[in-house]
């Protein structure tokens, strides 16, 4: 195998493949990236048995062939290469990389040990989304997935496709994020995709732009981009019925500048950072002011007020500052609407309607993003 590639393209491709290299010491082949040259294209593949990555980049191919090289080592090497064309040539069990005056000899692994990657079904119904919208949806939702493997179903993003819309939901039982986007496939399907796979797909969508094709199948999901593909297995188990958690009504409704509230929450929460457990921030809501307080006599205290329009009676309610800031960050709009029942019931956060003044309580914003946040008892 022999090829010549642009350093930046080759490095980007290796870095991307490296993200799904496995780390199971008992299966050494998983720690490798498979490189295959076919004509003037270099194909890279890696898998951790959960997510399979495949991509190809244009190269100047001189000799076809396939090799398996240690992923981390290859990534570390290409990251440091000077900005010049890269020549790669295999002799016996060594990959010789030359870039400018730098030369590396990397020992190869048996390529036949590399597992066959999962293949999407050829006749499946593929839906196409704008990459920007896909990336934004994942960014808004996936952060609410749990990182605790004790409850695997909460570590994924539930994708529920119905005629005309796709709803992505994630929850760690303290907060929940839900976004609905248009969907050009009619078939009803629900899949629970590992958060890591969604994040990897988002990364691809962000760097490549254009469009992403999604193929939802009963046992796997495929995300395809112009030059790369991710196939992920699904999380087994039933995702909780989360729609019943969304309150049907509210007693109080706050409209507030999103960026300003987020900044204040982050600033005030600093006094809790030295604690091992997260110190809640308390929002003191009155007709036209939001007073944000945090801290205790032992460590230090902070408070800051900002303007906010409250419909309903005054309320004091406390939240985990990180979860509140996550929701505000995810909403993305200029202003947000927060709906409350009382200090112990979940609050609903939505982007405020684009028009300058919030309408009466009855005209709820028909936003496609919703963040449900459980308060903290203080």
């Amino acid at each position: 195998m022999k090829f010549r590639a642009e350093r930046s393209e080759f490095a980007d491709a290796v870095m991307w493949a490296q993200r799904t290299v496995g780390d199971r010491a008992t299966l050494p082949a998983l720690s490798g990236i498979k490189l295959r040259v076919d004509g003037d294209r270099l194909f890279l593949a890696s898998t951790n048995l959960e997510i399979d990555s495949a991509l190809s980049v244009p190269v100047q191919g001189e000799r076809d062939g396939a090799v398996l090289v240690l992923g981390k080592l290859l990534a570390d090497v290409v990251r440091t290469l000077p900005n010049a064309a890269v020549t790669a040539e295999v002799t016996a069990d060594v990959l010789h990389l030359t870039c400018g005056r730098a030369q590396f000899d990397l020992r190869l692994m048996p390529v036949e040990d590399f597992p066959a990657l999962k293949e999407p079904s050829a006749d499946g119904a593929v839906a196409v989304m704008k990459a920007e919208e896909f990336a934004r949806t994942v960014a808004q939702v996936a952060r609410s997935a749990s990182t605790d493997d004790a409850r695997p179903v909460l570590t994924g993003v539930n994708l529920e496709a119905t005629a005309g819309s796709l709803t992505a939901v994630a929850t760690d039982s303290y907060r929940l994020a839900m976004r609905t986007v248009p969907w050009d496939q009619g078939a009803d399907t629900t899949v629970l995709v590992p958060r890591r796979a969604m994040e990897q797909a988002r990364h691809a969508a962000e760097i490549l732009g254009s469009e992403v094709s999604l193929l939802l199948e009963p046992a796997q999901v495929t995300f395809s981009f112009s030059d790369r593909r991710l196939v992920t297995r699904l999380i087994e188990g039933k995702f909780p019925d989360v729609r019943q958690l969304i309150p049907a009504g509210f007693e109080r409704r706050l409209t507030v500048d999103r960026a300003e509230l987020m900044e204040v929450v982050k600033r005030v929460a600093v006094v809790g950072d030295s604690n091992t457990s997260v110190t809640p921030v308390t929002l003191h809501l009155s007709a036209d002011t939001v007073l944000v307080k945090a801290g205790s006599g032992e460590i230090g205290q902070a408070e800051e007020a900002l303007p906010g329009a409250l419909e309903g009676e005054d309320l004091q309610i406390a939240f985990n500052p990180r979860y509140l800031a996550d929701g505000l960050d995810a909403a993305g709009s200029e202003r947000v609407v927060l709906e409350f029942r009382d200090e112990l019931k979940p609050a609903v956060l939505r982007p405020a309607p684009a028009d300058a003044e919030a309408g009466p309580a009855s005209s709820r914003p028909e936003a496609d993003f919703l963040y449900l946040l459980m308060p903290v008892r203080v």
Partner: protein
Amino acid sequence: MRLVIARCTVDYAGRLTAHLPSAVRLIMVKADGCVAVHADGGAYKPLNWMNAPNTLIEGDGVWTVTDPKGEMLTITLHEVLLDVAEDCGDDPGLSKDGVEAHLQELLAAHPTALGDGLTLVRREYQTGIGPVDLLCRDPEGRAVAVEVKRRGEIDGVEQLTRYLDRLNRDPLLRPVRGLFAAQRIKPQARVLAEDRGIYCVEVDYDDLRGLASDELRLF
């Protein structure tokens, strides 16, 4: 449990192939069908393993382990140094200090986790032959004797039966209903309990701990 120490080579074929060259290793075959190949190192992690359900075929110096997913582990035995088998019987499970007591404490604080409207009368209620973990009252005012275990097995049901027999002799308490609470109740224990009119409730220790702390959750 069968333990074989042998010089062997091991080949795995499934979604990928893996080969362990010839060396002395421990092969563990558990009663549930799990097969694990250990080296003399690497802590608890086997070099190769196949989770049950498996089919183990012992050929002449070659063991073939297959599972329904089509994965295959082939163990070629060059020299068997030890081959012993022992029936370990039922495992009582991991007993962590304090967990059962903590479970009892949590259920005493949140008796409604055992049944709607249940209120605590007292913990460790003496019966004359030992204390029953919790004595509660249901919404109709009837007494409910609760035995709390980490793992619900037949001996726990027998224990509660004995307590109920004693408690039902007390005219101020009777009729006393039995409630058997555990993180996991074995099917045989459940059948025996329900046959004797004892209610069974499986409780989630982690959820209870969540209840005990001030953490509010969506579900």
